[in-house]
């Protein structure tokens, strides 16, 4: 399935744009999403960490994504 991905901060620089789409198998987990991102964009492995938010909430590695989810790549935050 095709899933929409948004990127912010340095993640936007790494993927080369704010919004994109990636192809994942049905029932893919966040863990698989992160692995796929690191394979396609090796610069993600250089980050202190990165998280994935789904529908405006952080989700852990075991979370299963669904068609229509909006995934957001959250590199280390630095507000304040």
């Amino acid at each position, binding site marked *: 399935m095709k899933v929409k991905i*948004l990127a*912010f*901060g*340095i993640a936007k*620089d790494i993927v080369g744009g704010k919004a994109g789409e990636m192809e994942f198998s049905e029932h893919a987990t966040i863990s698989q999403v992160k692995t796929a991102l690191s394979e396609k964009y090796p610069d993600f492995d*250089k*980050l*202190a960490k990165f998280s994935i*938010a789904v529908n*405006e*909430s*952080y989700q852990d590695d075991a979370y299963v994504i669904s068609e229509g989810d909006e995934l*957001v790549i*959250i*590199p*280390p*935050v*630095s*507000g*304040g």
Partner: protein
Amino acid sequence: MIDITISSKPLSVSQCYDYVHDQRAGGNALFVGTVRDQTQGKAVVRLDFEAYKPMAIKEMQKIADTMVERWSALKISIHHRTGTLELGDIAVIIAVCTPHRKASFDACQYAIDTLKETVPIWKKEYFEDGAVWVAAHP
């Protein structure tokens, strides 16, 4: 009793104080984070803040909810700036009032510490010779 704003316009300390000001409270604590002229000895020229706004608002709301539950905060104002900031500009204001003063400090400090860990906002620091996304790399 919770006022959360993410804005590209300059922030106002007195606006946040006026919001939390309450006759039921004896203690008001405020934290104001401003743009420093240097980072680890290197001169900063300006900053950019980028926010994933809908989620940032939700995460700030969670922080405020915890301040109410854990420290009986009566009113809370959390304002964060986005866009380009010059030296000395205000990046964030947290204001909270509680019946007694110790709780106001603890709640305020919890809020800024947690905001810096969980709220999806990113700071890019510009130096004379380039720019970096803060905290991105180990």
